[in-house]
């Protein structure tokens, strides 16, 4: 029983990271109808930026992390202005390939830095074990869960109670009508990309204590797609929940099912979900958005 809870908390923590990446993916998709295949790279570059500022330039951790996230948001906005704008109104594949190409550029650019291609890094988060009764939780897992919950609240407030948030939602629901109502649709697209890139960077910083910072850490974004789809592709809370669900299912499958099944489970669940609920698991949430 104890080991079950132990495994469960790990699953939730990893699931939160899946969820955050899925969230960034869905945010962009909803607002701009652009499928981004570079969230993994954004996550990695964000984490490396935090490492560079912290270990390289000697900034305190919180400042380095915040600057890295802000910097990635800026990068996202810039990429939207320069490149990704051209994908709007084009077939999905245009965006898929554009973002894939941009991802290669980011990855290649980082590979040219000797320090990045030689080594694995860590961010100096306090690495403690928290004992809750007989349960041992690692601080990094608790941090991920808490940060994700806090972010969810912030985003909910943003989308419900701020002008920009409301405008972004309007734009996602119906860009034409929103533009008629005076919402600057183009600026909203830029904002969506900035938020999406920033969220990916946050996921990267949070992932850093768990998997460390290295060139292949972006692979985790592969799990974010099933999470986003499980959530219905257009629902923000759905994406987050989809991620957590996936993380938990994966962890439990590793514990309970025969050896080797664990790695198929996320995709099998995805297939099943697609068959049972072609509109996504969150189709029931629709009314509340």
């Amino acid at each position, binding site marked *: 029983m104890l080991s079950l809870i132990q495994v469960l908390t790990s699953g939730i923590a990893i699931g939160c990271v899946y969820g955050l990446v899925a969230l960034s993916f869905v945010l962009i998709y909803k607002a701009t109808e652009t499928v981004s295949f570079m969230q993994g790279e954004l996550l990695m570059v964000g984490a490396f930026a935090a490492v560079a500022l912290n270990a390289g330039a000697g900034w305190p951790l919180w400042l380095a992390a915040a600057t890295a996230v802000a910097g990635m948001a800026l990068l996202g906005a810039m990429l939207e202005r320069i490149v990704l704008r051209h994908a709007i109104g084009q077939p999905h594949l245009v965006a898929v390939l554009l973002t894939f190409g941009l991802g290669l550029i980011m990855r*290649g650019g*980082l590979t040219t830095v000797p320090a990045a291609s030689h080594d694995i890094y860590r961010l100096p988060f306090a690495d403690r074990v928290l004992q809750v009764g007989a349960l041992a939780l690692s601080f990094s897992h608790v941090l991920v869960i808490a940060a994700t919950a806090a972010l969810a609240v912030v985003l909910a407030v943003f989308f419900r109670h701020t002008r920009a948030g409301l405008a972004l939602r309007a734009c996602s629901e119906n860009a034409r009508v929103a533009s008629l109502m005076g919402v600057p649709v183009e600026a909203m697209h830029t904002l969506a990309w900035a938020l999406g890139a920033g969220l990916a960077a946050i996921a990267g910083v949070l992932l850093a204590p768990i998997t460390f910072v290295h060139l292949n850490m972006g692979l985790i974004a592969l799990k974010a797609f*099933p999470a986003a789809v499980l959530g219905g592709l257009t629902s923000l809370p759905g994406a987050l929940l989809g991620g957590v669900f996936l993380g938990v299912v994966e962890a439990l499958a590793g514990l309970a099912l025969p050896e080797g099944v664990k790695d198929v489970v996320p*995709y099998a669940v995805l297939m099943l979900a697609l068959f049972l609920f072609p509109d*996504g698991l969150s189709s029931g949430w629709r009314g509340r958005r």
Partner: protein
Amino acid sequence: MSLLRPALLSVAMIAIAVGVLGADYALGQATLVTTYAIAGLGLVIIVGQAGQITLGQGALVALGAYVEALLAVRGVPPLLSMPLAVLLGAAGGALASVPAWRLGGLYFAMSTLAFALIVEEMLVRWTSLTRGGAGLSVPAMAWGGLKADTPLEQVVVSVGVLSLVWLACARWMRGRLGRAWRAVREDEIAAAEACGIDVGAAKLHAFVLGGGLAGLAGALYAHWIGFISPEQFGLTFSFELLMLVFIGGARRLSGALWGALVIVSLPQLIALVRDALPGDSSRSAGLETMLFGAVIVLAVLLRPQGLASAAEGGRRRGRGRAPY
């Protein structure tokens, strides 16, 4: 003629390449370009004609490659084993297309992704047959006393196979099948209601033929590379194929050849440019990746309809918003 120009151009490029690079290197590239083009034709049908996004074509290539490898090791002649590889690829395609009965667009694309990852996992786990992650060595293609193990022989086989399937594809595209696919691509509901097209069957046909071509390409790939393992056919490979048809131009058969040229030869070209440049080349690996990414971005921005359309006098941009 959609066939003539890229064919002539390829011949000219091969001639130049042989002169500059040396015969084996150039022919080796031509072998892989044509093999990738065969898989690309499959995607032209699925993506460009029937308008379905698939993110799992690599898995179908893997099926063909494994069938061919396992049979070739046991001495089955290619005339028998290659059709079996095609058959399994086609069966895989049919299976992958099942979700298309219920799902459309991105949801379906995600289901193909899941399908591909499940196939890859199966290849990893079924160690008694596939030897799992340890991979399989594949003998040279041989039939009786004939053997294709030099680059020249390989290129002859690949070009021969490519020509055959090219003709078949052109036939399918001109006929009823092609019309049904294009109708489904432009507007599923109208196709079904106004024209009486069986949408499900049209999609199934596209996937079966596309999967068969993928299986065929896989069979050749297994021989040319000589060693296959599950990770070679992962998501990156599926993406490479998707990029291939898109950069080439998904709506035309010639797009497959153009795209294969870019995907296979571009990194080689970049490496040659790098060799010609002065300075410390030891840091260049990242630069090569960057350049490759930049070329993709530029190609997509400047030629949203693919290189094939540019080569043929630049047609207008596609109407409406087809899923590809």
